[in-house]
């Protein structure tokens, strides 16, 4: 699975992109957040307020946290958008 981080999340994690094999029990966005928290304090830090983190699956917004990751190739985590 390719995971992308943007803006201040990228700065806290320390990198913008990784390729990673997710464990079989990570089936939803919620599961992913729980699993990421266990990877170290840089992940815990940006997941302190999980409600403000936006998630896109294969470049489409996924607002529901119980959305399945089955078949997904690219997950992106980012703060609320401030373009325009």
């Amino acid at each position, binding site marked *: 699975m390719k995971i992308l981080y943007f803006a201040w999340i990228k700065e806290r994690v320390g990198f913008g992109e990784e390729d990673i094999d997710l464990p079989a029990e990570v089936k939803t966005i919620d599961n992913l957040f729980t699993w990421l928290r266990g990877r170290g304090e840089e992940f815990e830090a940006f997941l302190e307020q999980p409600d403000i983190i936006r998630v896109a699956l294969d470049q489409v917004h996924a607002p529901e946290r119980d959305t399945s990751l089955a078949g997904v190739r690219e997950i992106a985590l980012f703060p609320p*958008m401030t373009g325009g």
Partner: protein
Amino acid sequence: MAEPVIKIQVQHADFDLNDEIRQLTAGRHDIGAVVSFSGLCRDEDGTLAALELEHYPGMAEAEIRRIAEQACKRWPLAALVAIHRHGKILPGENIVAVIAASKHRQAAFDGANYLMDFLKTRAPFWKKEHPKSNTEGEWVSASDSDDSALNKWD
């Protein structure tokens, strides 16, 4: 009316609105109204050195296109263009342009306005402000007024 022309560009380079409008109206005599919006980098205090615009390549274009397609379902548009810059942008420079063309003026006004409102809150771009005084910039917070601007389209 023919299928609307949709053009989405994410680029560092600046744009020329007059050229863009000329391109989309060239050879067509069915366009009576063109509305353009340009968003510029403000700096009322004089404290900003530059804005840095980060984006999600691929999704940025795809998401703006999805919004543009929604707009084309809602209004009879002949063409819809969005150009969003990324990278370093100085005070007074352009950040974004949206152009909507139609037979009549209200559709062009509404199409451009709608595209901007949704682009603001849904297109994956993030602004960091680099102040003149400080080497480390600050990420801009999302604005509640941008979220509530969407209500007018319900």
